[in-house]
């Protein structure tokens, strides 16, 4: 399967995933719904890499709207950016981390992905799905390269109402030594992974110990609650954001309609994939009258509790060590199971998604840190990569 949905320049050094807008270049977000959509402007992150002298290679394939794990669009699509980085055909890739997909891809392909602190990289120009958690990050062969590109795209942007003024004060090129750091290994997530993933976590823990860091096993008891809450928030926001794709203004329009309702229903039924539809149905349900308080509102409360709980942990620890994915290799699942598979797997990525805290995947493991500690995580990833090399 092709890694690029649209190629821009064979000699370009930055790949951009297809949920990020580049002016005049088609942007599909991996969906038939947007197969003929050409944006009028570029994402802020794209403008910044271009201004820094990088060139774009093309738009890489993504699961539909960044929701997909595997199954529907297949392994090649999901890992398109990570495998281009791995084979060395681009220096780095910009990817939207909506529900952990680029983190999983990096873990599977053995490359590095940095999901920065929410609000530090402008979301202006993302085909949005879950606004409260999605974030543009950087995939690269190693943490140092990811940091180089991240430093270019990060920073305050007035066009994004959630952009943080403090975004300008992060040192991405930190060389903080692992010596003396305290790293917490999350017991439940370690236990949920397969043997090959466990081995990678063990290796990372051994490296840190050897470098003089302290490793402590901890328990994160409300993980299931956090994952459910994140799934509710993500699905609800996705439902709302995708409702603009109705066949009226741009994108796919059914040929079979006699009135506006048939135009809506026909266009959306024909163009959206299974997982997107399942997400929309779930997201509509949790926002509906009579369900809102017990679902969406409760999820917001759990998000606040999760932020408190993790903030408390980070008073004691420098980072959390955990898998990004339960398996070291992709397994194919039938599409009908996609929604529940995504839900199962997002337990590894939900803590950083729901809180907006930074996460770095490197050497097959995931590190999660406190707000604005992106630099520290990058330094910790460098320590692992040095060991590998």
């Amino acid at each position, binding site marked *: 399967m092709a890694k690029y949905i649209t190629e821009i320049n064979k000699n370009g050094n930055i790949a951009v995933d297809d949920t990020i*807008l580049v002016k005049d270049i088609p*942007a599909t*977000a991996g969906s038939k719904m*947007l197969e003929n*959509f050409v*944006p*009028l*402007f570029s*994402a802020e992150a794209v403008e910044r890499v271009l201004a820094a002298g990088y060139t774009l290679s093309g738009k890489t394939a993504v699961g539909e709207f960044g929701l997909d794990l595997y199954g529907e669009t297949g392994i090649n699509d999901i890992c398109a950016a990570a495998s281009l980085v791995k084979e060395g055909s681009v220096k780095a890739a910009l990817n939207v981390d909506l529900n952990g997909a680029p983190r999983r891809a990096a873990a599977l392909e053995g490359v590095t992905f940095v999901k920065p602190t929410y609000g530090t990289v402008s*979301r*202006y*120009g*993302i*085909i*949005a799905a879950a*606004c*409260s958690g999605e974030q543009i990050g950087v995939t690269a062969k190693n943490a140092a390269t990811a940091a180089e590109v991240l430093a270019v795209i990060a920073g305050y942007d*007035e*066009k*994004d*109402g*959630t952009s943080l003024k403090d975004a300008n004060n992060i040192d991405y090129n930190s060389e903080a030594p692992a010596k003396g750091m305290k790293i917490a290994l999350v017991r439940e997530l370690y236990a949920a992974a397969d043997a090959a993933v466990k081995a990678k976590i063990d290796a990372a823990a051994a490296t840190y110990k050897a470098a003089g860091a302290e490793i402590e096993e901890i328990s994160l008891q409300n993980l299931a609650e956090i994952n459910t809450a994140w799934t509710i928030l993500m699905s*609800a*926001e996705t439902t*709302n*954001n995708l*409702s*603009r794709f*109705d066949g*009226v*203004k*741009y994108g796919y329009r059914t040929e079979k309609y006699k009135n*506006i309702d048939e135009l*809506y229903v026909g266009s959306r039924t024909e163009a959206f994939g299974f997982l997107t539809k399942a997400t929309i149905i779930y997201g*509509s349900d949790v*926002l*509906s*009258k009579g369900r*809102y308080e017990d679902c*969406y509102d409760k999820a*917001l409360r759990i998000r606040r509790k999760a932020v408190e709980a993790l903030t408390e942990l980070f008073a004691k620890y420098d980072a959390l060590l955990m898998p990004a994915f339960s398996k070291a290799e992709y397994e194919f699942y039938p599409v009908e199971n996609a929604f529940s598979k995504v839900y199962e797997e997002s337990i590894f990525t939900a803590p950083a998604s729901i809180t907006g805290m930074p996460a770095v995947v490197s050497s097959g493991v995931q590190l999660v840190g406190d707000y604005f500690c992106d630099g520290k995580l990058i330094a910790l990833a460098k320590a692992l990569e040095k060991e590998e090399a």
Partner: protein
Amino acid sequence: MKYELVIGLETHVELSTDSKLFCSCGGHAAANEPNDCVCPACSGMPGMLPVTNKHAIELAVKAGLMLNCKINQYTTFDKKSYYYPDLPAAYQITQWFNPVCVEGTVEVGERKIGIKQIHIEEDAGKLVHDDATNTSLVDYNRTSVPLIEIVSKPDFRSSDEVITYLKKLKSALQFAGISECEEGAMRCDVNISVRPEGTDKLGVRSEIKNMSSFAEIKDAIEFEKVRHVDAIERRTEMLVQETRRWDEVKRRTFPMRNKETAADYRYFPDPNLMPIIIDDEWLAEIKASMPATAEEKGQKYVAMGIASKEAAVLASDAKLCGMFDEVVAMGREPRSVASWILTECMSRMRYLGIETLNIAPQKLSRIIELVDAGEITRAAGKKVLAAVFENDVDVDKYCDEQGFNAKVDEGAVLAAVKAAIAANPAAVADYKGGKEKALGAIFGACMRELKGNGDPAVVRELLTKELNK
């Protein structure tokens, strides 16, 4: 049995901001053609993020202060979802959970009407149905234009109270520069029920949607009252809680299709917009920028030498007092300005059947300046004013074209006097025979001869002198 009306109002007005609520497009006022004022944000393109227009928040707070509301210093925006082609993102950004103003009151006659809340929201676009091609076209000029919705408590007991309230609201909003309240731009949803006088339990409620003319609102309320009372007393129909629309041709309300009203809007907080914190400092700034009330304006005018009755009329209308303030600021004498606005402009407006004074203040100022300086006569000034109203003419150019010039030399006046005497022998004979009144006719002929120019006092003096020779 006697019945009592119970009415609550939801009033939408457009805020007078320079740009839309979440993007930098100019408001609909800046548009000439359909979809003139549209950008990727207000047309629902993916990738755009909303950025709140601070001025809209300030205007909404001003409205709240005027209606004695409590200002929520922590206020949020929420999304309301529904599918309709005039709503490009399929959601409207509004305030559902934490509206900017709550718990206010307005005095209507002797009674106090409660205000439940004021919230800010974006408007939707407009659908245009083209029967010729059997297609529907969308115009997004209005999408995301900022509105406030002022929600009253069900405190009105008559249609008169409703109209008094709306008039008061309109003039107050115009006064404070919160909304222009242009013709038809104030839209109301009227919630109405009846109950036996002296009882507390609310009757079955119907909601009449989207009314803008005050006269139509009054008629619709009266119609509904009769319909409700008939249903209760004579069992003409079974009342159900429903949304209805007023048919201006058939002069009655009709139920709207259930489908349009039974939606679940799935409100939730907009994650793209941070809560807005109106801190004490900002609130104080907004309070300090509140304009004078009508009463305060009236007192100021009286102090400027305007008679109290005239001052009150000027102060009661935002357009009139705006014109007055501007023309006076241009250096014209206040009493003269008041007289030109209240006499000449208003009679012109009545003649043309227009409700708002919308000529350029510079032009009125120039006319008054010319008349007060004796450059043209008041009669000529009135003619120029009429031409400004009708064709927006340039004052000086028009005076030149028409030959208006009060400073005519005595020789020309004398020539006109002689010509008028020669042309009206009968009137001259009458006058000489002792009929003083006949002088008017000769004087009129004289002024016609002068095309309205010349100082009337001089003309009269020369005329009598000539006749009495």
